[in-house]
């Protein structure tokens, strides 16, 4: 009897919450019609607040001529230049780099084999050969040198931080907050100030990349340390290990594969910064992309973008293989083969230092120009075929969905919007949602770019809904079907690492300069990560659970909706969350294609010195939106899990 009544209570309570939410929204709309246009905090394009002007005036206060930053710059610069001398730039009074293409391919393939397996070694050789054939060998090597430098430096900082955050709860909380900030703060925001500290060139570009790329490594190292089975740690402690011994002999070795995933994510993040960093004179493929775009040469931009994708896929597969390697040590046969391989590599390096054909990538076969022509033709064809139709879609979505939502957000008084959002956050996530929401909204008002924030929020919400819908559909499909998964992964990888600049041009052609274009670009960028997380979540649903559902005669749809999706809820929450963050990180790119609002403010701040302060404020506003939405979704997710606050043992390590 007791069970039945408690069930009933739950049944009654759930609809009640959604009814309250519904009522709240209706009240909001009604209030909007009454209060429209009051207290909307409009700020024109060239207008600034006193905060913005203060920021602009004080931009030079730190950094210039500081010996500390100079020292960092010089060290990093030397490191990058060293790597460039090794593989990409003529150096040491020779017309070629220290190691020519043959040597680089050999070393890379050998490392892939030694740390991963022979399959990824073949992939590595093929991938590097391909970028060579694209006619982009030197640019690719510059990019690779910069990426390697940024990733190594990132890890140098990130892994100790990650360990710290893994061991200490307090450090973990602080780190999570700081990392959220680092990941949502648009690159453009700190690109310009960074040049004040570190000038322009490879060093500044490396450091910008480092800031962007370090968070995943910190996060995953911390996560890895925290998810080492407590019994293994207790066992080590029960035998009298010191803290150091526990760390070195138990925690770190057992975290290896997760830390490698973090390294993998860091590499991907670093590669996605390549084009942006080109704006402050980072050498490599990013330059090629940016230059091609000046003349709207989609073909050449695509060719260079493709090289970035290929490098990304190679690095991704190699690190994944390295992370998956079992504990077992190498067999004698493998050891012998590895030795022989090392000799072969040395021979190849010697060749590449001695003979021109092995030093400079042969330019007779240039696939790159053909790829460029095909890409241009395809783009033109798509534009011609879909050109008329796409404008219709854009207008329908804009007028039917985006404009009403944006109108509601921008037309309502700021205090009304704030009240509604805080109330919603409370309903969905309790105090854990409401308090951060209130703080973020207050700070948003303080940034002085309230209205632009609301415009961006409207687009972000719409984009996120689309991203989640598409990500769920694709993710479930890929999660249930191994073959689909295999085919879809490289496409997703490409979507994630292809510089957005490359597909912005075709999108501009299809949809014109509009907020819709920005939404479309954000969707392309964010769908891959959402899909991957959903697919992994679906795959992680225990086979037994699915079998149990099938055994009672569930239809496919019932299995998906009643078993797989609910069981994979944690993954889906994460997917929504990450989708949101990725959408927000594209806001600035959206500013380049007509989304206006915060994205444009940031770009303008980067380009015009008198708007610097406003750009910075807009960047902060993006972060605040990100933190707010993140906290609300997480609190809501926690709420639905019926989490009980009963603590178990082992609260302290």
């Amino acid at each position: 009897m007791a069970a039945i009544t408690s069930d009933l209570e739950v049944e009654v309570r759930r609809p009640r919450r959604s009814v309250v939410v519904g009522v709240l929204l209706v009240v909001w709309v009604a209030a909007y019609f009454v209060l429209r246009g009051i207290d909307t905090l409009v700020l024109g394009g060239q207008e600034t607040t006193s905060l913005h002007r203060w920021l602009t005036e004080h931009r030079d206060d730190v950094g210039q001529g500081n010996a500390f930053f100079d020292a960092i710059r010089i060290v990093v610069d030397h490191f990058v230049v060293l790597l460039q001398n090794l593989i990409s730039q003529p150096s040491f009074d020779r017309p070629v780099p220290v190691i020519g293409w043959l040597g680089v391919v050999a070393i890379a393939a050998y490392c892939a084999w030694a740390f991963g397996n022979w399959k990824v070694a073949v992939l590595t050789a093929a991938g590097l050969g391909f970028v060579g054939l694209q006619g982009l060998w030197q640019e690719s090597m510059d990019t690779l040198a910069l990426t390697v430098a940024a990733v190594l430096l990132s890890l140098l900082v990130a892994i100790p931080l990650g360990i710290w955050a893994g061991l200490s709860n307090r450090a973990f909380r602080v780190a999570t907050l700081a990392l959220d900030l680092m990941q949502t703060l648009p690159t453009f925001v700190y690109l310009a100030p960074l040049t004040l500290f570190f000038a322009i060139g490879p060093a500044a570009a490396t450091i910008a990349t480092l800031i962007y790329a370090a968070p995943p490594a910190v996060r995953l190292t911390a996560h890895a340390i925290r998810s080492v089975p407590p019994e293994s740690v207790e066992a080590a402690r029960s035998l009298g290990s010191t803290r150091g011994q526990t760390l070195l002999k138990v925690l770190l070795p057992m975290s290896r594969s997760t830390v490698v995933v973090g390294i993998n994510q860091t590499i991907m993040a670093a590669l996605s910064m390549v084009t942006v960093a080109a704006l402050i004179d980072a050498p490599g493929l990013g330059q090629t992309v940016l230059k091609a775009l000046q003349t709207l040469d989609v073909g050449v931009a695509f060719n260079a973008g493709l090289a970035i994708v290929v490098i990304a896929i190679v690095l991704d597969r190699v690190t994944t293989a390295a992370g998956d390697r079992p504990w077992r040590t190498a067999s004698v046969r493998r050891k012998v083969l590895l030795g022989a391989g090392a000799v072969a590599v040395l021979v190849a390096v010697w060749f590449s230092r001695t003979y021109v054909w092995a030093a400079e990538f042969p330019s007779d076969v240039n696939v790159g120009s053909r790829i460029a022509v095909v890409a241009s033709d395809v783009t033109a064809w798509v534009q011609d075929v879909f050109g008329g139709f796409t404008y219709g879609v854009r207008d329908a979505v804009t007028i039917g969905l985006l404009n009403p939502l944006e109108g509601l957000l921008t037309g309502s008084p700021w205090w009304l919007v704030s009240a509604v959002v805080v109330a919603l956050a409370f309903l969905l996530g309790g105090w854990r949602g409401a308090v951060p929401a209130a703080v973020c909204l207050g700070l948003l008002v303080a940034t002085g770019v309230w209205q632009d924030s609301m415009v961006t929020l409207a687009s972000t919400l719409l984009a996120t809904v689309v991203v989640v819908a598409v990500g769920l559909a694709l993710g479930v499909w890929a999660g249930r079907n191994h073959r689909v998964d295999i085919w879809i992964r490289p496409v997703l990888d490409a979507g994630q690492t292809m510089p957005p600049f490359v597909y912005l041009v075709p999108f501009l052609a299809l949809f014109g300069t509009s907020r819709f274009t920005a939404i479309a670009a954000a969707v392309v960028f964010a769908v891959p990560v959402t899909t991957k997380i959903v697919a992994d979540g679906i795959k992680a649903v225990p086979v037994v659970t699915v079998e149990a559902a099938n055994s009672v005669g569930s239809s496919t749809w019932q299995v998906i909706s009643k078993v797989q999706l609910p069981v994979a809820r944690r993954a889906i929450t994460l997917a929504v969350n990450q989708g949101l963050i990725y959408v927000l990180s594209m806001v600035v790119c959206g500013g380049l294609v007509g989304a206006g609002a915060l994205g444009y403010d940031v770009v303008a701040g980067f380009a015009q010195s008198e708007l610097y302060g406003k750009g910075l404020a807009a960047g902060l506003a993006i972060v605040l939106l990100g933190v707010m939405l993140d906290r609300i979704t997480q609190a809501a997710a926690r709420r639905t899990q019926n989490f009980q606050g009963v603590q178990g043992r082992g609260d302290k390590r």
Partner: protein
Amino acid sequence: MTAQLEYPDIQDSDALLSVQGLWKVFGPKAQRVPHRPELAGLDRADLYAKTGCTAAVRDLSFDVAPGEVFVVMGLSGSGKSTLVRCLTRLIEPTAGRLVFEGEDLRAADEKRLRALRRSKFSMVFQHFGLLPHRKVIDNVSYGLEIRGESKPDRRRRAQEVIDLVGLAGNEHLYPEQLSGGMQQRVGLARALANDPDVLLFDEPFSALDPLIRREMQTEVVRLHREVGKTMVFITHDLSEALKLGDRILLMRDGAAVQLGTGDELVGAPADDYVREFVRDVQRADVLTLRWIARRPRDGEPLDGPELGPDVLVREATRLVLEADRPVKVVSNGTLLGVIGDEEILAVVADN
């Protein structure tokens, strides 16, 4: 046994490990709970509602004698795993005293504690707690490695215990290549490797198949016979407790319900909880004649066969049923009582 040489007098104070008034409370400001009677007296739900705290161990006192197998039993959530971790301060107790060989463990600093863990205590875990990146032999010698023994020494010692627990031939495999039972043998070997005085077992066999479990229990009995270590053994399995334990502490909600030998628990349950707990036991296998003997009735013939009070009911069944008169239970020439067919049948037919 050396322990007995150090403690010539058979007194209460010669316990190897003595626990007095031990508390472990989880939650905010846990310190106040044991020290304030109005909080200490609350039951689980009230305590949580009032303070947000949960008392995993509440006011436990017991002694473990040298060479004894001391079993702590209870259902999951009864606090027994927390208790065993408190004994070596893997979890810091909230209140109470822990005395080991006359030394106050709670006063020991980090360094002393480490030294004790390295030489006096070892623990075997439910899910083994092995290090997947190390081979069997390196797992076993881990404890020796961290206390700085040379490689040949620790190899030799590791090999000894590997042979002892029946793992010979598997030294160079990785844990994931072994079955659950074999993995737990690695856990056992690791615990034995540094030759501790006390072995702590935290439900070591509950993750194993029944057949393997029985085999491992036998293995522990054998080891206890061969190496004579003091053992504190946590389990939720009554038959395991009865099989291994010299004495059993039954816990519920962090508190002790009853402490006694196996037949005491079965024969004289302290309350309904214990009674319910031991209801399904094959009583004939546990109870001795001492528990079922009754005073002879008037006029009953007292010339039947004689048996000692510590004979198990199961072993006496046939004799009692075949005898045509009550069997006498005699200890040192004193008649404790008699047993007839109905007493035997009440126990045997109970199942």
